[in-house]
């Protein structure tokens, strides 16, 4: 009975989660080589050649990695710092505030930050009213800008609380306070404990969530659509544009990009699974 229940759960998971995604992947692969879709005229690598030859597609990949790595790195550093601060000075009130940003969907957060940071936004108007700038145009460009400041800030606002709550939970579950006492008796000071116990434990227990969230973040598009430039754009925005444009000849490139992105993520995860003990300290 137990075995039947277990097998049913696995079957249900495969049927609901794996099969549709696999079908989508296979369809995209066939579409990208001309074996499916409206304009499919038999096997061709033309769309792949176009995608790989254009700086547009490759820039999208690089840009997506830049945004993800920057956001995740910033969020992780701040989450580690907050978890350490909370470890030293515990306060339940400060933790409860962390749940607030999680109530905002990415689209709403993107719009909110747009209204705060754009040249006609709140900060710009206040700066003008307070005399910090002479003209509204003098306000620095923080949305649709070259360094994607607005995107990184918004994504940070969404990711930082999740990582912080994750690290705080690990800290509690792994009994770090008692381990601190143990380390102290064995001669380790606060600094030694932070570097050799606190950080490695948080990282070793939380790294898979961080990686999976990074992959999830790469797949989102609302924030980058609202706050990003037309070019470069993220992989998801690239795919959306190619799919929704009137030029039907661009659709196979969108499918090729989907296949490329999925394969890259799959390879990345396979490499990580092989490196069993990857650590930061």
């Amino acid at each position, binding site marked *: 009975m137990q075995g039947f229940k277990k097998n049913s759960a696995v079957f249900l998971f495969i049927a609901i989660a794996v099969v549709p995604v696999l079908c989508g992947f296979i369809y995209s692969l066939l579409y990208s080589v001309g074996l499916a879709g409206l304009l499919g005229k038999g096997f061709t690598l033309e769309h792949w050649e176009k995608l790989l030859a254009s700086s547009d597609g490759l820039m999208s990949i690089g840009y997506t990695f830049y945004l993800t790595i920057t956001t995740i790195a910033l969020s992780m550093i701040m989450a580690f710092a907050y978890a350490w601060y909370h470890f030293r000075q515990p306060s339940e009130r400060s933790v409860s505030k962390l749940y607030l940003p999680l109530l905002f969907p990415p689209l709403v957060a993107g719009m909110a930050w747009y209204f705060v940071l754009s040249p006609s936004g709140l900060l710009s108007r206040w700066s003008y009213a307070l005399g910090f700038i002479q003209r509204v145009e003098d306000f620095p460009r923080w949305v649709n800008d070259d360094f994607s400041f607005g995107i990184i800030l918004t994504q940070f606002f969404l990711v930082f609380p999740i990582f912080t709550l994750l690290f705080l939970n690990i800290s509690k579950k792994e009994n770090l306070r*008692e*381990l601190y*006492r*143990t380390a102290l*008796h*064995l*001669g*380790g*000071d606060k600094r030694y404990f932070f570097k050799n116990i606190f950080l*490695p434990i948080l990282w070793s227990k939380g790294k898979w969530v961080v990686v999976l969230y990074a992959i999830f973040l790469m797949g989102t598009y609302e924030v980058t659509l609202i706050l990003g430039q037309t070019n470069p754009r993220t992989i998801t925005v690239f795919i959306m544009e190619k799919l929704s444009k009137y030029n039907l000849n661009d659709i196979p490139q969108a499918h090729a990009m989907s296949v490329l992105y999925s394969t890259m993520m799959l390879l990345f995860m396979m490499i990580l699974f092989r490196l069993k003990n990857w650590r930061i300290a």
Partner: protein
Amino acid sequence: MIVLKNITKKYQGKSVLFDLSLEISEHETMCILGVSGCGKSTLLKVMAGLELADGGSFEMEEQHVFDIPAEKRGIVYMSQEPLLFPHLNVFENIAFGLRVRKWTNSEVEEKVNALATRLGLTEELMKMPHQLSGGQKQRVNFGRSLIIEPRLILLDEPFGSLDSQTRAEMQQLFHDVRKEKKITALFVTHDIKEALIMGDRIARMDKGQLKVYPNSGAFLNSGDDDVVKELSFWNGVINGEMI
């Protein structure tokens, strides 16, 4: 020589340690017996630097220990829960104190291997803490404490969570190693038999105060209620009255 004088500690106005004084000689193991909540764990925590005393003095080799931060006291506190570092294997757990003191790799290796052999942990050195049994974890904890050659080890019912056979093995191991390494220790327990096996001297703690007996014989002949009960139980067993 370890000298505690007039130690007092209150929690929310209630006295836990009251004018407590104690002397422990070098290489001596003193066992403190007492019921739960009598203040024995608090005494160890005060000595280890985990709690602050409200009054009194604590001297070790003529040093005022209360003025020294916990990490520099050279006092190791071992609790019932072994609390190994979960991300480090057995070797690195034992080596922790040596790494803190920046010993070279070859020195660490030599010392850890020697101690692991003594503690019967050679087969376990590369295992992670979650792969160990309760007894093995406590052995690692013991090795981790012992390797830095502390001036004093405080043991707070360290074998309390072990099954009776493992507990007996650990008691024997501690008994042998403490003699061999000339350890100075304060061992807290509520088990009279354990106190008799472990201690050179035994003390009874009651309501924050200590009564120290000069030797095991004096303790057994003291008329202590628990001793009388324990002895009458075993006499009953021997005479067949309890079966």
